[in-house]
């Protein structure tokens, strides 16, 4: 399951999607909207996505992870639109036979997603807003 969605992400469905009889380990990363970033109080977030390219890149990342580690299955779902504090922005689930591979593949997937998948996060504060990472 690899998708961009404007609906709340069903975490349980992501975990179910990576079930495999040969898997002894699943690592799940859940990115949520926190109320504070770099000393600013965040009111809400907005994610904008280049949907088709984002899904294409996420599929490429899942394939690359499966080449690097003995991955059974990968699920990656990213939310778009307006999110409140506490809402889930992204879920990545990876199943592998042994746990070290699950941790490493999952961590690589979220790190690399943040570098290459065309998704943009705007933080909205009481007095203003900002696209993250835009400026040096």
């Amino acid at each position, binding site marked *: 399951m690899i998708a961009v969605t404007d609906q709340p992400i069903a975490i349980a469905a992501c975990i179910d999607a990576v079930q495999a009889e040969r898997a002894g380990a699943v690592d799940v990363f859940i*990115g949520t909207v926190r109320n504070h970033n770099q000393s600013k109080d965040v009111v809400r977030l907005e*994610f*904008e*996505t*280049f949907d*088709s*390219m*984002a899904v*294409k890149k996420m599929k490429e990342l899942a394939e690359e992870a499966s080449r690097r580690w003995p991955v059974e299955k990968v699920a990656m779902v*990213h939310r778009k639109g307006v999110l409140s504090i506490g809402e889930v*922005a*992204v879920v990545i689930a990876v199943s592998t036979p042994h746990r070290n591979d699950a941790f490493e593949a999952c961590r690589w997937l*979220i790190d690399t*997603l*943040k*570098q*290459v*998948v*065309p*998704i*943009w*996060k*705007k933080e909205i504060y009481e007095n203003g807003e900002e*696209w*993250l*990472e*835009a*400026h*040096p």
Partner: protein
Amino acid sequence: MELTIHLYGITRDIIGQSRYVVQLPPGARVQQLLESVRTSYPELAELKSLLVAVNEEYAEAETPLSERDEIALIPPVSGG
């Protein structure tokens, strides 16, 4: 040739619309597109990075462009 550029995030805010039409000589490459939009919108030069996606793939500076391509400006991504 007339290229339609899809805009997202801060580039959409800077240019003020979600699609931007630019005139470039036939056979123009990604590098010329970037020079053209940075000349028209100097704020784009202040971004940490600015890439171009051609048909949903990151393109090199030397990649040639055509009117049939789906072209997008990609400011620094910040998903997750």
